[in-house]
């Protein structure tokens, strides 16, 4: 019975009953309205692109200077001048635009992006985000600090607990902040959460996840939205 195992010592067990990485990405994609301009961070957030219906015309922004980024090209159609922020070959969709780094970050900082979807090391119950550094990590901040302050909203996709089984949803971040009070929504293998005023509100539980599993795997107080976990 994996759902009753203490998540703090059994992170793998929690993953089996909840969403996979792809399902987390698909869950995020389902909530993005057509016509939005969206930046997807490295790692799990990039998977969201695979679940976006082209007919909804959601434009992906890449901070190295693309608005309207498409998927990876076939090997024989790689263009060395078209790469994403993770330095991998990508494409540009019809109607896409390219620009320099100053324009790209003006777009971000100026509040023109509807959404940034990012990974995280920790999210606090007040919405503080830590996702750029930790002890022993190689230095690098990239565009993370610009994105969290500039985008109209920030969603985080991550595993509910880290590799050691410690909660990543915490009362206060112990790792250096990327930005204070910036996260609007968190989607993990266990469900969908909203930080605010020291409490995480559970908006949705992933299939097979018991309310007490979430309570145990979360480092901060949790409350359930009406109708959730009943």
């Amino acid at each position: 019975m994996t759902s009753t195992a203490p998540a703090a010592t059994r992170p793998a067990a929690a993953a089996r009953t909840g969403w996979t990485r792809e399902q987390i990405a698909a869950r995020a994609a389902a909530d993005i309205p057509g016509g939005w301009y969206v930046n997807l961070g490295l790692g799990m957030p990039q998977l969201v692109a695979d679940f976006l219906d082209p007919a909804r015309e959601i434009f992906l922004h890449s901070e190295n200077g693309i608005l309207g980024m498409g998927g990876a090209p076939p090997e024989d159609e790689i263009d060395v001048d078209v790469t994403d922020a993770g330095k991998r070959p990508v494409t540009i969709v019809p109607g896409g635009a390219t620009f320099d780094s100053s324009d790209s970050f003006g777009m971000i900082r100026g509040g023109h992006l509807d959404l940034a979807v990012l990974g995280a090391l920790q999210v606090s119950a007040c919405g503080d985000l830590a996702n750029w550094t930790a002890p022993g990590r190689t230095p690098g901040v990239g565009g993370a600090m610009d994105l969290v302050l500039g985008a109209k909203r920030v969603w985080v996709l991550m595993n509910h607990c880290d590799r050691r089984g410690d909660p990543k949803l915490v009362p206060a971040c112990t790792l250096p902040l990327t930005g204070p009070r910036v996260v609007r929504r968190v989607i993990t293998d266990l469900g969908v959460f909203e930080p605010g005023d020291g409490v995480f509100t559970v908006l949705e539980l992933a299939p097979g996840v018991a309310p007490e599993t979430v309570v145990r795997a979360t480092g901060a107080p949790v409350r359930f939205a009406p109708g959730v976990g009943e």
Partner: protein
Amino acid sequence: MINKIRGSALELMEMIPSGATIAIGGFGVTGVPMDLCDALCELDRRDLHIVANNAGIDPRGVGRLAEEGRIRKFTGSFPSNKEFNRRLLAGEIELELVPQGTLAERLRAAGYGIPAFYTPTSAGTDLANGRYPSRYDASGRPVEYLPPKEVRTFGGRQAVLEYALHVDFALVKADRADRLGNCAFRLSARNFNPVAAIAATTTFVEARHIVEVGELGPDDIHLPGIYVDHVVQSKEGAAR
């Protein structure tokens, strides 16, 4: 007649002394002026202060400068190079870590005559409060930190003071350039190249293709020749 076209990357990099501050365009390997970086290495330039987004993700371009230990100080957002990190933690390199958008804007401010500006980016973080290391000793212990940034509140929101980032030289990669120094970039290879170019006292362009004056129409020119001092044909373009 104005003619900014020069014979070789080596001839251009002869003008840069060891110890210089150099902005280098590019993101990862896209839009990086590889020939100019190679020439700096071949001329054995050292103690360089490099301003660039990355420290190279492979042993070319800025990566080669890092691998060969030619960097004294690095200003950028995502160094992410194994040898760079080893040298950083051995106390050989000073690191000024700057958020990517702030890096672009500091270069832009330098080019456009703005001495400093306020931005909300990094307010309330270790990059602004004097708690992020900029230098380590030989055993990897932090010995110096980035200076705390001045903070002001605008409309209830904190912002930090950032200074224009002037550089002695810029190394730029363009797709096309003419003898007047007019440049056109291609797709996502534009990235940091224009802001590097405008922030420099002297700007060197490595162009994939050299074109006749007039081939680039007024609307095609992303970087007008006023910002450019010297142009050389890239080996990459010549090979095509």
